[in-house]
């Protein structure tokens, strides 16, 4: 991902550049240490930033006849909660109807606006099986399929794990879990005992790390981090 530099920083850097040059010209032999030429050159090169294209872009034809154009320069910050996404706006909401909305939300991206509409499908997804979005489902499982699922699961819960069954039958994990519950002994054998044994083996650091992780997750759920 390319390193980006947002506009306010650039502006202040421009100020910095001018001031430094001027001062160095005014008092060459002052107490402030003068930088070696290489660094200075690099800084000049780095700080030589043109203003934001939204300011350079010549006015749109709509504003050719003296009408004001809107320069939309979204904040370079994480979106606020109180900024309702376009899709969440109810039909009656004026923001949805406004022409501004039409123009701005053309890319149908509420926050982190891009100059050009981004191709959402180009963005990499985070692989998650449990998310019903990833795998295509057939919602036409018959009674037999469910019976088969139950049989397989009870026959060999290790091989026919929930995930495998979901993949095999093309349904969601939750559906599998709704259909069939493996026996208690299997649950203990697979989940409880190994975890208990593992916990026995944990040293203080690891236990602390695990607890921290747990605590971090709770804090995350409370929105504190």
């Amino acid at each position, binding site marked *: 991902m390319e390193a980006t530099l947002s506009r306010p920083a650039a502006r202040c850097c421009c100020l910095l550049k001018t001031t430094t040059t001027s001062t160095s010209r005014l008092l060459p032999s002052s107490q402030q240490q003068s930088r070696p030429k290489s660094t200075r050159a690099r800084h000049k090169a780095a700080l030589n930033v043109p203003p934001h294209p939204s300011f350079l872009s010549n006015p749109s034809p709509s504003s050719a006849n003296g009408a004001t154009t809107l320069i939309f320069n979204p*904040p*370079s910050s994480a979106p606020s909660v109180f900024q309702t996404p376009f899709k969440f706006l109810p039909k009656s909401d004026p923001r949805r109807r406004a022409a501004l909305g039409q123009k701005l939300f053309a890319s149908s991206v509420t926050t982190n606006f891009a100059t050009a509409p981004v191709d959402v499908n180009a963005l990499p997804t985070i692989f998650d099986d449990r998310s019903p979005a990833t795998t295509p489902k057939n919602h036409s499982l018959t009674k037999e399929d469910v019976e088969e699922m139950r049989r397989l699961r009870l026959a060999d819960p290790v091989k026919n794990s929930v995930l495998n069954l979901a993949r095999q039958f093309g349904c969601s994990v939750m559906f599998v879990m709704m259909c069939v519950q493996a026996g208690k002994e299997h649950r203990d054998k697979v989940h409880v005992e190994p975890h208990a044994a593992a916990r026995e083996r944990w040293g203080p650091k690891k236990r602390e790390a695990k607890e921290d992780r747990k605590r971090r997750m709770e804090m995350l759920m409370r929105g504190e981090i």
Partner: protein
Amino acid sequence: MAVKALQAVSQGRNGVGAFILQCKRIDLHYCDWAGSSKGMNGFIKSLFPKFAAAHPQIEFTVSPRPAKHPVAIGHYINGRSKPICVRNMEPYEILKKLELLRDASGEKLKKVTKPVRSVNESVRGIWSPYHGNGMPL
């Protein structure tokens, strides 16, 4: 399941809805005999009535304190108090001191460096390097 609610208490912002003057009481002490109270006694008779009428939201108590220098003590809503000894002062100097007491917030004196202190989040949010459409360099 769904959403759980956390508890929070609203913060007061004095002056947003209503403004409460932070100085809630001013005590004036004088001495009938001592010469250092001369100005204070004159002030209580001459200037003080107008001042008190102009500030009905402040409670004023006037009480003698024999064989002591005259004092004006301001009590504030945050529980602190600010005493000022006004011995040998002219009535107008004492008026200045009372205005000082009235305008004080009762906090300890501290240097205010930031022009604005607010609980509201800034309109543009906190800058983050991962947002905004940056410019390629």
